[in-house]
């Protein structure tokens, strides 16, 4: 049975090239698919295509609904795959970053920089036995991961990727988002309850308490950008902001900066990220609600946990950080490039791609911030977690909400106020950034070290 292992003959250059091809090609292909499909799978476009290609009247043709459904189904498939792949790549990236932060090397075996490790991990998890404890509630135990997965996948419906790149621009977008992400709690609670294990039950209960508590400051903080743009639609909120930092929601209103901080912290808590990973605190609860899961179902939880980073980052970018707005490209530019054609020309696609690049870059920055916070702060205690929510975040969220109401009245009187606040806060942030980098340099120098990325 033992097989002879032969030393791998692949040259390092090939490994690097293959890694680069997969690492850039896979997300690139998915982004391209989203770029192409999301404007083209809208029912209006499908109807027009049906009418033009088949020469039938879409209003009376019996299969119009089916054609629209298939088109949306393809888009949904691409989006869920995007979530899964982004989640896997986030795992790899987070493990790399965390190891550097802890002076370790991290993944470095499978592919260049260990890039294929996440694929190897996923394959390993899929091959593991999907064990169900004897005394577990079979139906609930089996179905719980799908609630979590559904809550995660449904969020992608309203996540904008670019100017017209969104699966569905619901006019209740933000509300929808908060509603469907709550499904994740249902899944976690079910998992905790049905496992019939005290670790899992405690984990599930803690998670429910945590997520439901933090929904309140998150919801109130979200009200601030909504008030500032006067709409619940995700695209509407982005359109109400400008491309430059001093036109972003986070800076045009002092209370909104506070709201952004509150929203960010609440998102960490809702995503069960460290420092709020109490539901799966290893040192106390084995693995919390995940204790009894294995194989594919465990993989689903993991996928959602890391995929949520992208969702969190994209939502924060949309609400506070100007979304996909490209400098010097206003709504007229998009309209001019769009023209009246059914399938718009190359200029429009180029603009869309540009807006997608801006959105993705901002999202990646926020995503890295979340990863960075996780590897910086230790887990807080459960009473501290509740204290933080009810005594600090909730009152401050309400205060910023009230301040925004007054601020909007003031801005309606003197529109220059928003610009002044934007420029002042942007300058303050830039100054803080410089100070922060100086502090970091001081930390480096204090240890007699220097910046050395040779072994990254």
């Amino acid at each position: 049975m033992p097989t002879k292992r032969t030393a791998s003959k692949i040259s390092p250059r090939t490994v690097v090239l293959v890694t680069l091809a997969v690492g850039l090609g896979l997300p690139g292909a998915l982004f391209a698919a989203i770029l192409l499909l999301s404007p083209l799978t809208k029912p209006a476009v499908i109807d027009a295509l049906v009418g033009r290609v088949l020469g039938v009247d879409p209003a009376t043709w019996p299969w119009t609904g089916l054609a629209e459904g298939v088109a949306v189904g393809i888009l949904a498939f691409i989006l869920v795959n995007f979530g899964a792949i982004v989640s896997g790549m986030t795992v790899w990236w987070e493990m790399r970053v965390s190891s550097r932060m802890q002076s370790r090397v991290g993944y470095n075996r499978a592919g260049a920089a260990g890039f294929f490790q996440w694929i190897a991990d996923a394959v390993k998890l899929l091959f593991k036995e999907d064990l169900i404890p004897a005394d577990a509630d079979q139906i609930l135990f089996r179905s719980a991961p799908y609630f979590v997965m559904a809550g995660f996948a449904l969020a992608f419906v309203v996540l904008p990727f670019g100017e017209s790149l969104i699966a569905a621009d619901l006019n209740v977008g933000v509300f929808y988002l908060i509603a469907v992400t709550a499904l994740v709690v249902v899944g976690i609670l079910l998992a905790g309850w049905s496992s019939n294990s005290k670790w899992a039950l405690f984990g599930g209960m803690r998670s429910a308490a945590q997520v439901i508590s933090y929904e309140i400051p998150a919801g109130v903080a979200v009200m601030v950008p909504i008030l500032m743009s006067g709409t619940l639609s995700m695209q509407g909120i982005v359109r109400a902001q400008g491309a430059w930092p001093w036109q972003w929601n986070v800076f045009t209103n002092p209370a909104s900066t506070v709201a952004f901080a509150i929203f960010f912290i609440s998102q960490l808590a809702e995503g069960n990220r460290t420092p709020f990973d109490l539901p799966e605190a290893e040192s106390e609860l084995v693995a919390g609600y995940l204790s009894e899961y294995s194989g594919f179902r465990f993989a689903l939880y993991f996928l959602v946990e890391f995929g949520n980073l992208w969702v969190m980052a994209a939502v924060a970018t949309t609400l506070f950080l100007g979304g996909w707005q490209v400098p010097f490209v206003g709504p007229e530019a998009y309209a001019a490039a769009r023209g009246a054609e059914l399938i718009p020309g190359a200029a429009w696609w180029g603009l869309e791609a540009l807006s997608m690049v801006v959105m993705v870059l901002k999202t990646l920055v926020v995503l890295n911030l979340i990863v960075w916070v996780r590897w910086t702060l230790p887990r807080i205690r459960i009473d501290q977690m509740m204290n933080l929510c009810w005594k600090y975040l909730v009152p401050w969220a309400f205060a910023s909400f009230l301040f925004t109401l007054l601020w909007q009245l003031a801005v309606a009187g003197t529109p220059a106020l928003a610009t002044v606040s934007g420029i002042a806060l942007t300058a303050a942030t830039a100054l803080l950034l410089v100070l922060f980098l100086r502090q970091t340099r001081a930390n480096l120098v204090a240890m007699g070290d220097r910046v050395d990325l040779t072994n990254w």
Partner: protein
Amino acid sequence: MPTTVREYTGSIRDTVKSFWHGLSITLSYLVRRPITVQYPDRTTLPVRDMLPPRYRGFLEVDASICTGCQACERACPISCIQISLEKDPQNPKQRVVTQFDIDEAKCMFCGLCVEPCPTGSIQHTREFEGSQADLRNLVIRWSDPLHPFPVYKVDKAAEYLPRVELGTLVRAKLAARAWDAPGPRFLPPEPPAAPAAPAAGDATPAKP
């Protein structure tokens, strides 16, 4: 739990400060060179040569100075050592060690066997890399019935005991065995497998 305004604002300030300093410290580590050394292929020396000299790794027996006293076997609290002695058929006055097995998989490297050895024949080495696909391959045989060694008679006049360089013997033994070599079979061959479909219900073996 804050009870005064000062405590309340103080805890907000603490939070902001710990974010500020914490993030800056982790960022500064992010751009440093990791201090870990990648084992096994990027170390400057073989790892065994970087270990302290009194490291307790795999045991090594120098057969040329083993007196066959079995003190090590008796000292081992978990019986990893198995020694058998016989008379040499050719020379009834000479005893030979026909079995000297040390189960390195079971050994806890406590060193209790090393201490009673009168000649220093059994010693810990700095070898520790012994990955084997089959656990039984970690039983290192220093003598076996086909290759027995005669016991050593301590020369009272000798100034020192001629021991071979520590580590060479066990290294040779480990190197001679491929990591995926099939393990030795200590049990008799298993009986032929039962027919696929048992004829009668009572013929099936009882399950534990």
